[in-house]
């Protein structure tokens, strides 16, 4: 007689439903894209051309789920998923990750650490990478994580990152999403901050046909500071759906979010953000800004900036704008001999860089600008 063991995560995954139209967390979103039923996980993959290594960084290269080269004293592969949770609408996908992810990269350091993770994605099917970054007291960790497609097949990447900072530590993280136009990405980015710690979590989206991103930052310790940055450059056939949550759970905490979307062709972006201030979290400073630069007459941007404030003595604000490059700016540049097309690109590039500069890390900024420029070069 044989016994089949079903892990609790798999059971939970099967219990949950895929998103439906009436889910408030999927308002304006393509809930149909989120249905991944019947998809199997991908097998072994291949590597592509390796980008220039970043100076002073430990580099780990993955081909789909396998580590193919590199190592770091501060990083270790642990079997299974760390079990991400979704509080912003994709519980089913979080459970999927928990049930089926092969291993988690556990990064832990109490000192200076620079780590570059390259994920080469190939073949059709599900790919479920997971990373936990633990910054111990006094640590200064920099992580670059790149998702690069090797071929044109329709991959579905469900990725989860959990950043945990101890007192007086700092984590700077840049994720670049350079997948092919047939792929989908569902990304969970969680961070939990202890007292006097700092996180700067940035993402650059240039690829994929559909992205759903859920960023949840718990600013839980006195004087903790969380920055969330995003630069997205969608074109025709691309939809980026980003949901964020800035959770202030302690006194005198700070958070700042800046999202810059430049929309080309028939691109669609959705931004839904919430600043949530717990009862008693007095002295909170929280900001949230989403700016959409509309480059064509056919793109569409949905913004839902939100606030839920349960404490007084707080400074919170959010702003959201949608507009195009102003004629004056174009005129000014053209008067100096720059063509209209180049002028528009210059302005748009400057618009994106404003968010990138907030990283305050030259190496990461250079990389981000490089990825952004590459996208601009593909646009007519």
């Amino acid at each position: 007689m044989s016994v089949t063991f079903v892990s609790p995560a798999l059971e939970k995954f099967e219990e949950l439903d895929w998103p439906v139209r009436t889910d408030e967390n999927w308002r304006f979103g393509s809930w149909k894209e989120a249905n991944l039923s019947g998809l199997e996980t991908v097998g072994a993959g291949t590597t592509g051309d390796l980008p220039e290594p970043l100076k002073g960084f430990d580099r780990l290269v993955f081909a789909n789920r396998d580590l193919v080269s590199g190592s770091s004293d501060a990083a270790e592969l642990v079997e299974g998923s760390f079990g991400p949770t979704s509080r912003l609408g994709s519980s089913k996908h979080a459970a999927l990750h928990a049930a089926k992810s092969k291993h988690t990269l556990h990064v832990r350091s109490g000192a200076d650490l620079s780590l570059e993770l390259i994920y080469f994605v190939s073949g059709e099917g599900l790919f479920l990478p997971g990373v936990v970054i633990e910054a111990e007291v006094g640590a200064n960790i920099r992580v670059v994580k790149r998702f690069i497609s090797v071929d044109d097949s329709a991959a579905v990447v469900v990725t989860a990152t959990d950043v945990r900072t101890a007192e007086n530590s700092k984590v700077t993280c840049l994720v670049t999403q350079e997948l092919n136009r047939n792929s989908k990405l569902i990304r969970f980015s969680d961070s939990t901050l202890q007292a006097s710690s700092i996180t700067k979590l940035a993402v650059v989206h240039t690829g994929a046909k559909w992205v759903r991103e859920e960023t949840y930052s718990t600013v839980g310790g006195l004087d903790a500071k969380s920055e969330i940055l995003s630069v997205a450059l969608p074109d025709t056939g691309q939809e980026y759906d980003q949901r964020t949550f800035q959770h202030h759970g302690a006194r005198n905490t700070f958070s700042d979010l800046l999202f810059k979307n430049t929309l080309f062709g028939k691109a669609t972006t959705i931004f839904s953000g919430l600043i949530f201030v717990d009862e008693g979290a007095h002295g909170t400073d929280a900001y949230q800004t989403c700016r959409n630069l509309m480059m064509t007459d056919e793109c569409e941007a949905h913004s839902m900036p939100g606030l839920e404030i349960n404490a007084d003595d707080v400074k919170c604000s959010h702003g959201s704008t949608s507009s195009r490059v102003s004629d004056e700016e174009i005129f000014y540049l053209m008067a100096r001999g720059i063509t209209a097309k180049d002028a528009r690109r210059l302005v748009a590039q400057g618009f994106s860089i404003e968010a990138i500069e907030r990283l305050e890390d030259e190496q990461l900024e250079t990389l981000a600008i490089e990825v952004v420029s590459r996208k601009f070069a593909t646009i007519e």
Partner: protein
Amino acid sequence: MNSETATVKQVAFEKDDVGNFSFPESHKFDAGYGLTKDTVDYISKVKDEPAWVNEFRHKALKTFESKPMPTNWATRDLENIDFDAIRYYLSDGAKPKRSWDEVPPEVLETFDRLGVPEQERAFLAGVEAQYDSEAAYSNVKEALADEGVIFVTCSEGLKEHEEIFRPWFGKVIPTGDNKFSALNSAVMSGGSFIYIPPGVKVKHPLQAYFRINSENFGQFERTLIIADEGSEVMYMEGCTAPKFETATLHSAVVELVAMKGAKIQYITVQNWSSNVFNLVTKRGLAHEDAEIRWIDCNIGSRLTMKYPGVVMKGERARGEVISIALANDGQHQDTGAKMIHAANNTTSNVISKSISVGEGRSTYRGQVHIPKHLKGCKNNTECDALLINTNSRTDTYPAISVKGNQHVTQHEASVSQVSEEMLFYMQQRGLSETQAMSLAVNGFINDLVEEFPMEYSVELKRLIDLEMEGSVG
């Protein structure tokens, strides 16, 4: 006790007095508790309505029954409404009165208790005073009638002015818009119908006073205002209600139609007692060059859900919502605005200010929609929240959809509190803490209060002062 606290006590006493009175109910028509097909037929029969209205009601009832409560996005407090414990129609059957002398003494007493000033009463000659489901007093100034202005109850409008009424009735807010617009469509009674002929600019604001004074009795007014080409009108409604032990439901539907170049301003001061569910659907349709402004102030009720909207259907149409909300202990003011741009070069503006006192909760919910292939649309949204106490709560949930690069939208929101420094500064100059707080709050909303007609803004400031009473210290 110094003279200042004496005045405060006195004012507070008056306030309680206004909120707590009642007088004997004598209703000739009563549809009983609960809502069935019979209720709908009963209302139709009493009101002697044409068959199409009865049919309209029945259809709406079906829609109401089939629609779920919107608790997937709205507060769960809605689940506390017991639809079977509500009386859907009450009327003493009196025909609208023509002069003050004929108005029943109880109603006059009501106006007394409301504190309507003597001067204003004279002005009330052009007033539609609603008492329970029917207008107990209705007298349109002759001058208005001479200009061809129609200002009647909604039931009168649908019977006697069907040719103007019917083409627009239920067109701005279809029955199935939401659960509560369907409910209103099924059991509507009372409300006004106003028609302003082309080019007529109504000088005086038209007013209506609404009152709920039967326990468990929900009021379901239906108002339709049509401003024909190039006309202008300002309509004001103010609501107060006595206190009752059990919750009451108020669910109105207000439709505005501004034809080419017309202007409509709709002003509301809502001060229901704190057990009333106030679930209102308000929307205006603005044609070419027309302008619709909603000026809205919510102070009372247990839960208010109200998002006045403007559909800008014609080129260069303009929509505006100016909103003040004050949420005190046990209150939730869930208000906002809906701006639907449906033509080129349309502009909309939303300015919302909310104040949360004690454990009060105020919410802003907004929608701005600019669809494809339009040019030159502009939206500006500003929402500011002021938190008075440690347990006060405020939320903001806007949604902005823009398609294309020919538009400009901007949204800004901020949350703040009255700073200690500001209070300290004012107390240094001899103001009490309460006075200082009151001054700070009035300063916060001052620029919006100025948008209200003078007599309203004075009343508004007084109401806000009263609400702020006891919130500090």
